[in-house]
């Protein structure tokens, strides 16, 4: 493998002393207080894990999961963002070896100049490789590329006893696939070797088309998925009646140099996204409500081109529009918000429709409503993506009637053989989890063998008796 280079910005720093901190997820709900350690070496991690005490320990990346998986009330939390060195790069094969706290943003900055993009990107670049593996995240390319862990060649996992195991899908399929999607409960990922995606440019050629209703959205996605690596539909979730599920579909591929206008061809791999603004922490809860979200949904819908329109988009503009505003989650105010993401099999399209209908009729406002098609599942025991339709809503927690609505949705999703995403979950029930993830028992066995004392625990694992 290549050179020792590309150190992260904070890599040589010293270890700061542990602090007691109130932590929550990106939704800013259900905080708890834990002892936060910021290790800089695997020795420090091993020490923290083996002396964790009765409340255990869990890893944390950039805290972009919405609920409570990266917090551990009364116990220890390992903030791994200081372990952010890119350790090795092989420009021929596109493989990189990274520490767990390396973010996808950092990888893009480092690797795009060499013609490599991350194998999978979620809707924000500000997630760590550790978090990406532990949630086995997906992007707009799932139908083409699968989930993140399917691009992990190997990883080093620190176990409860302080020992380190190198896992590959071939050598240790069980522990590898229990760790991928395992929500930090098998151990601490210390480093990972990833297969990056070769690209000619840093631009996406995007076709955008307005769709009048849910059927059209679904038909358009099914049609364009075959020859587009990326696809996603954004819905106006408050539209009802004949407009139910209206929105716009974006289908894209990485642009080739030939696709670019002359000016961009000079530097086809340019990547300089900058947050354009930062959210102050002054918003009252309830600013995003039915009325304001209805207006925003409508404006967005009207802006989308009626006929298919092709344009060149930047990586930030296409994949991570919300990253342009730092701390945008503050706009929900102190009461916070939650994200609800489910998947149902393709043959359960009627369930999808019923849910979209009920949410619209009940006028539960969702700031972001995103529909996607998932390809085949990865072997991860608790990996979320399974073949079918996945829909994501963002709801302010104060929405009237929300608890009952979500419970009704849980039931429909379960009935249809679907499931909810643990990286977004902040409220599902342990019984539903059990029913939605048929391989949970098998996961528990692998976990029990790797961590017999249950050292790795999180608020989420306690809440769901994971």
């Amino acid at each position: 493998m290549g050179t020792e280079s590309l150190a992260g910005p904070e890599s040589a720093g010293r270890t700061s002393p542990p602090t007691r901190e109130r932590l929550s997820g990106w939704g800013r709900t259900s905080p708890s207080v834990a002892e936060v350690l910021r290790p800089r070496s695997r020795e420090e991690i091993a020490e923290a894990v083996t002396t964790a005490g009765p409340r255990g320990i869990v890893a944390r990346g950039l805290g972009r999961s919405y609920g409570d998986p990266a917090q551990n009330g009364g116990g220890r939390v390992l903030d791994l963002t200081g372990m952010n060195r890119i350790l090795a790069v092989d420009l021929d094969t596109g493989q990189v070896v990274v520490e767990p706290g390396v973010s996808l943003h950092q990888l893009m900055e480092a690797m795009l100049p060499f013609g490599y993009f991350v194998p999978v990107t979620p809707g924000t670049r500000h997630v760590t490789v550790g978090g990406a593996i532990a949630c086995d995240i997906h992007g707009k390319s799932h139908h083409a590329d699968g989930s993140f862990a399917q691009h992990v060649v190997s990883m080093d996992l620190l176990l409860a006893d302080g020992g380190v195991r190198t896992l590959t899908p071939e050598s240790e399929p069980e522990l590898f696939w229990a760790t991928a999607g395992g929500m930090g409960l098998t151990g601490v990922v210390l480093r990972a070797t990833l297969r990056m995606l070769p690209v000619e440019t840093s631009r996406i050629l995007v076709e955008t088309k307005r769709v009048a209703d849910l059927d059209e959205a679904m038909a358009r996605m099914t049609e364009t998925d075959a020859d587009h690596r990326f696809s996603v539909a954004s819905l106006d979730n408050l539209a009802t009646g004949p407009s139910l599920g209206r929105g716009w579909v974006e289908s894209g591929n990485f642009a080739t140099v030939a696709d670019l206008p002359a000016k961009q061809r000079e530097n086809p791999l340019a990547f300089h996204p900058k947050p354009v603004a930062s959210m102050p922490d002054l918003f009252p809860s309830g600013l995003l409500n039915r009325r304001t979200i209805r207006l925003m949904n409508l404006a967005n819908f009207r802006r989308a081109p009626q006929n298919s329109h092709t344009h060149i988009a930047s990586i930030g503009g296409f994949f991570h529009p919300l990253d342009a505003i730092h701390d945008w989650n503050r706009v929900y105010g102190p009461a916070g918000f939650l994200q609800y993401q489910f998947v149902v099999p393709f043959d359960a399209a009627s369930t999808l429709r019923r849910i979209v209908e009920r949410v619209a009729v009940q006028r539960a406002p969702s700031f972001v409503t995103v529909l996607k098609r998932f390809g085949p599942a990865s072997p991860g025991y608790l990996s979320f993506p399974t073949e079918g339709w996945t829909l994501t809503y963002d709801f302010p927690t104060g929405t009237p009637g929300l608890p009952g609505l979500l419970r009704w949705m849980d039931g429909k999703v379960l009935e249809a053989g679907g499931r909810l995403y643990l990286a977004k979950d902040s409220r599902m029930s342990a019984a539903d989890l059990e029913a939605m993830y048929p391989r949970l028992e098998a996961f528990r066995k692998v976990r029990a063998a790797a961590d017999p004392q249950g050292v790795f625990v999180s608020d989420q694992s306690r809440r769901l008796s994971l």
Partner: protein
Amino acid sequence: MKDSLGSVQSLLVLGGSSDIAVATARKLAQDKTKRIILAARPSERLDAAVTLLRSHGADVRTVDFDALDFSSHEKVLAPLFEEGDIDVVLLAFGVLGEQARDERDPLSAAQVVQTNYVGAVTSSLVCAEALRKQGHGSLVVLSSVAAERARKANFIYGSSKAGLDAFAQGLGDSLEGTGVHVMIVRPSFVETKMTTGRPKAPMSTTAEAVADGIVEGLRRNAEMIWVPAPVRFAMSAVRHLPRPVFRKVAEKQG
């Protein structure tokens, strides 16, 4: 752990047979509370509470708990937190006493104060420490509007609640930054077993209404609630009445 919608998963009640507590536990069980522990003195009323809560699908158990047996509180309560996290502790026990009798019999007055104040202090300190170790959780303390200004007709009870109320406020402040939240509940006259046979006071309410207030307060992590809500403003006026005027008003109420 309370979930993102403020729903409670596990509840410990101190004074498990109290009408207000049972109404609250029932509402929580109807929502999402699966594990309920009723710490109480054994009684038929307690058995009935267990049956009722089980019928709502909760996993309910009881432990023997006597508020007056201060030295047992640590031993009885601390181990309950080892069995699994407790999201909410509801401190509901209390006695009204008999004002006239208690004035004549200082030892029976002491009984009221020891239950409502001393027993509440010892048991909530044990629970607060356990919650602090957990890094999350709420302690709900049933105070009373009587704590805001004690009247001639109930000053023994009222002063014990005033002590408890002040204690709970200080405890809440001292737990800042630990993840633990203390909520003080100040109901007006509530029609429960405690008040049967007593003349209804103005702005009286029901155990159901107090339970609703508690459930809603837990969702938004309120630090102090009044039930019914407007009593807050009434009491703030009452607190500022000059003594002679207050005596007249209180006299009318009996």
